[in-house]
């Protein structure tokens, strides 16, 4: 498989070309620096993203609590993570970085509060 990846590590936005299959990378070029190469490899084999959203909250003077994944989650799990987030209701008081959903979708990452409510 061949993939063109735009590096997002710095504003240069280099276009990195990667060829390979799964974890195996046969060819990678187009990066300008080491950080870009690492990004290109990771983005090819295991793309991950920070996920942010909101969950409903009760007992507060606002209807929503902003939340985020504590670390990056696998990109392909994002739709199922959103499903779980949609079905979650938090209860005030909540402190910033309190765990709201533990180990979301079994990927080992917690969903935590982005704010104190």
């Amino acid at each position, binding site marked *: 498989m061949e993939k063109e990846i735009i590096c997002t590590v710095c*504003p240069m*936005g280099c276009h990195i070309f990667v060829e390979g299959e799964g974890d195996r990378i046969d060819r990678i070029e187009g990066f300008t620096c080491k950080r870009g190469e690492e990004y290109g490899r990771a983005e090819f084999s295991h793309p991950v*993203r920070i996920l942010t959203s909101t969950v409903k909250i009760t007992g507060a003077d606002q209807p929503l609590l*902003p*939340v*985020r994944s504590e670390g990056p989650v696998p990109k392909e799990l994002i739709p199922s993570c959103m499903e779980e987030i949609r079905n979650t209701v938090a209860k005030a008081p909540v402190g910033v970085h309190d765990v709201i959903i533990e180990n979301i979708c079994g990927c080992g990452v917690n969903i935590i509060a*982005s*704010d104190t409510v």
Partner: protein
Amino acid sequence: MYETKCDVAIIGGGPAGLSAAVAAKKEGAEKVLIIERDVKLGGILQQCIHPGFGLTYFNKELTGPEYAGAFKEEAKKLSVDALLDAMVLSVDGEEKTVTCVCSEYGVTKIHAGSIVLAMGCRERTRAQIQIPGTRPAGVYTAGAAQRLINRQNIVVGKDIVILGSGDIGMIMARRMTLEGCKVHAVVEIMDYLAGLTRNKVQCLDDFGIPLKLSHTVTRIKGNERVEGVYIAEVDENKKPIPETEEFIPCDTLLLSVGLIPENEITRGAEIEISPVTNGPTVNQYMETSKEGIFACGNVVHVNDLVDNVTVESEKAGKYAAKYAKGEMPSRNRTVPSVCGNNVRYICPQTINISGEDEKISLYFRVMAPDTGVFLTASSAGKEIYRKKELRVNPGEMCHVVINAADITGDDVTISVVK
């Protein structure tokens, strides 16, 4: 009328106002008062639940509420006062008074030693870009839709077209998609992306949302509610090419077509406004044309990174505290910063030469994207600064630092050269 006093009065409790308040306290101002029309502090960051804040200031990636939260906490620790649910109506630049209406005291007059303007900006609306067609419901500015979805749990539509490829527009494309909406296109009149590449990758490409460069919305269709929009390619003069017009059925059009600094109060106080930034002109202390009145954040110029807002706001807060204590640097002579090749505007617009040894930061934007360039500063025909830059882009602020002692001429010219 209720009257009160403080050393530093700050109008607006967004990241700019909060950072200025913290810095003013640290500089030794005793009573620092933030006046905010919202019921909560944090400004626009309260609705910016996405990550991307704090990469340069905190060296980690935070969401908007987390970034604002860090400053709210510090302000609380340092006993910064806040008057919430309080709308500022006017500022008197000579008397140094602020008049506001608030739910707690009614009409209130605040006598201050110095004042910091930190009112942020508002979004351009349909009226300012003049899209023809009917006037149905379902046309929102992206920021208004963001506030509704992220703070009030209201999703404004199901089938969306977004006009403008700025960061707010792209971030809303992702947000609406995650909430189950279908974003049919992001339409951009320029032939390049207005926002960060990273947002194109993570907000559009990740979800297969088409980006239509050199296109614009030509008409809106619908009587009660939006039924769709017509889009067309534009020629090099930004005029739509009729043959390329196509119809996209949708129920919502989001506008992400730029921000305008919120400066009614500034104009009322007869402070000089730059026709380029639409914000007050400032010197390196972030002081406006009226001595003792400072300004910072999006009210001065539209910032893409809140980290830069914090840095300039700390300056405003620090010197506002100094002014209130009568400790401003001496004012020997003032020189303007001048836009040279490919520079659209520079902030600060003027530099006070105090005679003190001082490093002066100049932030500026280029007019057109370019690669492999040098950022240069010169004074009295002599180059006093040169830095290599791999790439410059109108969407990303550039930055140079010069020594006050090197400014020997009547101005400083910033240029971007090959």
